């Protein structure tokens, strides 16, 4: 399908050289254009069009209704909660492994495991959490019969805001560990020694040297985890069916059966998702570039 090489063959020996070597990138460019850029542009343009094709802001305005706004709001809350908790817990675990004086052999398995767990999202993840924290899950039953804590009576429900957040953390924490470990490794011993020679206490070293260096990585990963949770569809649908009103589930239902009663409102909904994940990722890329200055 990608007959790149045949397109690229002539330029090397041609006597007069048209810029034919650009053709080598053509199959890739065509693929990306057809199956990534154009579909996305179709959605973006559709968000600003009436069904007849003229320009309008009506679809975007249509997003500002109670049910859609609340869907965005719940999505954002879940994404923020799982990103913040994921960052904090992931950072603690990574810091424990790198700086906490734990045995050296823990690192390798920890990183390998994080690689697997951060990819273990989607439908099976939802099943794992249903089997653990669901109404008859392992932990729910154990806490109830052995310790006497009734999670349901405490208001915990796996099909709720916290249920989804706790489930998302399963791939958020490992992702944080994977990204922040190199940054923690990048903290050079010399910096600490230099700070100590200049009379800094441990707390001062952390506040004035380590923290500012780690901050871009930390905030960047926060943005990445946010986008990661915001776009997660499969886990949410497998876990809650359609009982939780979040943007990906609403969009899924809209694509399937036009539940909003206006196809172009669906475009606007999707456009809103692109804008939010786009902003989060821009922040991530920008901050990562900043943090990489220290990791050479």
């Amino acid at each position, binding site marked *: 399908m990608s007959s790149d090489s045949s397109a690229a063959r002539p330029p090397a020996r041609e006597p007069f050289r048209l810029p034919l070597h650009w053709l080598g990138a053509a199959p890739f460019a065509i693929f990306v254009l057809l199956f990534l850029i154009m579909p996305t542009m179709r959605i973006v343009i559709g968000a600003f069009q009436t069904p007849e094709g003229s320009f309008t802001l009506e679809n975007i305005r249509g997003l500002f209704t109670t049910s859609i706004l609340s869907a965005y709001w719940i999505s954002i809350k879940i994404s923020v909660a799982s990103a913040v908790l994921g960052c904090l817990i992931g950072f603690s675990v990574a810091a424990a492994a790198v700086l906490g004086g734990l045995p050296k052999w823990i690192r390798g398995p920890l990183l390998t495991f994080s690689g697997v767990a951060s990819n273990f999202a989607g439908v099976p993840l939802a099943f794992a959490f249903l089997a653990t924290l669901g109404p008859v899950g392992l932990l729910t039953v154990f806490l109830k019969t052995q310790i006497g804590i009734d999670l349901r009576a405490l208001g915990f429900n796996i099909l709720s805001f916290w249920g989804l957040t706790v489930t998302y953390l399963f791939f958020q924490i490992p992702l944080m560990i994977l990204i922040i470990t190199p940054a923690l490794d990048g903290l050079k011993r010399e910096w600490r020694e230099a700070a100590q020679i200049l009379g800094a206490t441990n707390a001062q070293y952390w506040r004035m040297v380590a923290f500012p260096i780690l901050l871009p990585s930390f905030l960047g990963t926060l943005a990445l985890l946010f986008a990661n949770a*915001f776009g997660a569809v499969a886990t949410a649908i497998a876990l809650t069916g359609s009982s939780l009103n979040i943007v990906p589930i609403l969009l899924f239902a809209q694509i399937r059966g036009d539940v909003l009663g206006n196809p172009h409102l669906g475009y606007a909904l999707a456009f809103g998702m692109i804008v939010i994940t786009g902003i989060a990722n821009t922040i991530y890329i920008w901050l990562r570039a900043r943090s990489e200055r220290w990791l050479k």
Partner: protein
Amino acid sequence: MKKFWAWGALIFGLLYFILPLVGMTNFSLKMRRGVYSLDAYAVVLGDPRFQETFTYSILMALSTIVFGVLLVVPTAYWVRLKLPGLRPYIEFITLLPLVIPAIVIVFGYIRLYNTSSWLPLTGTTTGTNILLMFGYSTLALPYMYRSVDTGLRSIDIATLTEAAQSLGAGWTTILAKIILPNVLVAVLSGAFLTFAIVIGEFTMAALLNRPAFGPYMQLLGANRAYEPAALAVMSFALTWGCLGLIQLVSRFQKGAQSPA
């Protein structure tokens, strides 16, 4: 004191990850009342729908890998060799699928390639399958491209190309016989990751209405109790298998390179 907190954080993290795995394994074994049994697995494995969807997803994963390799390896090679100025842009484009949610991309497909469009891919089963494969290739692009590009960085492609050309090799020969074997480990790790992503993918397959493994799992989850847990255990084992293989091949490469 520091060690105490470090162990505490580590143990908390471990519990968080092990409990759900224990929970799902435990649940998957409890189909027969009162005793542990493998009944749920037997039911799942014996279900013809499981066999169909699983085979479908495996075929999908394999064709995605083949297409991805054919697309990414020549492009990454060519860009490094002749168009180094394009690299940052291509790198940026390959990261886009991480920014644009899969559900939005597939929404675009449905609108762009429906039966009344200029390229009515969704009109036929074969067309939809191809469209889904392209979708999967898009999802896998960030991983595949980065993996191959890193692999290419470690070899001197300019010298290899000139040497091959002076011996009379054409571009196809260079790519197939010189470049590909040299980046095989990188290609393989990209391939295993692609496999792990495609095999359980839900959103695209569900919205394009294809009988893939992901939608099957979701359907089973909505209707059954113990079988989904068995499926989850199997998927986790599969993901482990794929990523374990990546570790294995990259270690193999390190072993092969160190004497040189």
